[in-house]
């Protein structure tokens, strides 16, 4: 029996930021929190999950947190940890290789509307099994 192929998942940067904001507001068990925690566990629904993230997304995450007044040392530590989570996930992806400035809609979508925003989407979204955005979650 072969192991299940990892699900490659892109979380919109807003989900990471919303996860932090919701914790600041004292909320528990929100969708954003569950999604981020699942990526930290490296597993979704019993299946291995690989975070897909680009350097541009990490920079957006960093900038958003700094604008919220978060301590820069902690922001840098969180960004560096996300980089390492990506590199050491089940598929060992390297964010340095996820380059493609052109905004394209290449990810599988479930509705008629495009589901990829500009710039923050890892350019190799076609490497991903799933793209989740803030508009699809609740804080």
């Amino acid at each position: 029996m072969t192991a299940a192929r990892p699900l490659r998942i892109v979380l919109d940067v807003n989900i990471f930021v919303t996860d932090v904001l919701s914790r600041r507001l004292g909320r528990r068990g929100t969708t954003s929190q569950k999604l981020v925690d699942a990526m930290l566990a490296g597993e979704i629904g019993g299946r291995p999950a690989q975070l897909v993230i680009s350097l541009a997304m990490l920079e957006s995450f960093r900038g958003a947190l700094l604008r919220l007044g978060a301590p820069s040392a902690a922001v840098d530590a969180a960004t560096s940890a996300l980089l390492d989570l990506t590199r050491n996930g089940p598929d060992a992806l390297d964010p340095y290789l996820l380059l493609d400035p052109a905004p394209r809609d290449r990810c599988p979508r479930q509705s008629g509307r495009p589901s990829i925003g500009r710039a923050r989407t890892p350019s190799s979204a076609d490497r991903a099994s799933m793209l989740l955005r803030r508009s699809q979650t609740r804080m």
Partner: protein
Amino acid sequence: MPKALSATVPEPLEARARAIARQENRSLSNVVENALGVFTAMPKELRDQLVARLAVGGPDDAAFREASRELMFALAHRRFEAARVAIVEGIDDQTLDPALDGWRLEPEGDAR
């Protein structure tokens, strides 16, 4: 006060330690000190398993590399959680008002 240690090791291990020192711009003594520090901090059961695994396949053994990857992932997980706690505690509440409802990095038009 630092103490000097002397050990006899197989040549490939000596070469690997020297290569790491060169690549990471550290002294051989520093590499050995770190290696000893990490090894002696591990529980005996973990040390025994890692030594046994190395004896079977060497440092390039697939199972050894996979275990290393999983350990790196677990450490990154903990680092992210610790950083997130510091971020949550450090957020300036005055910046939160516009963030409470439908917070976004910037308006997102259609992708095309």
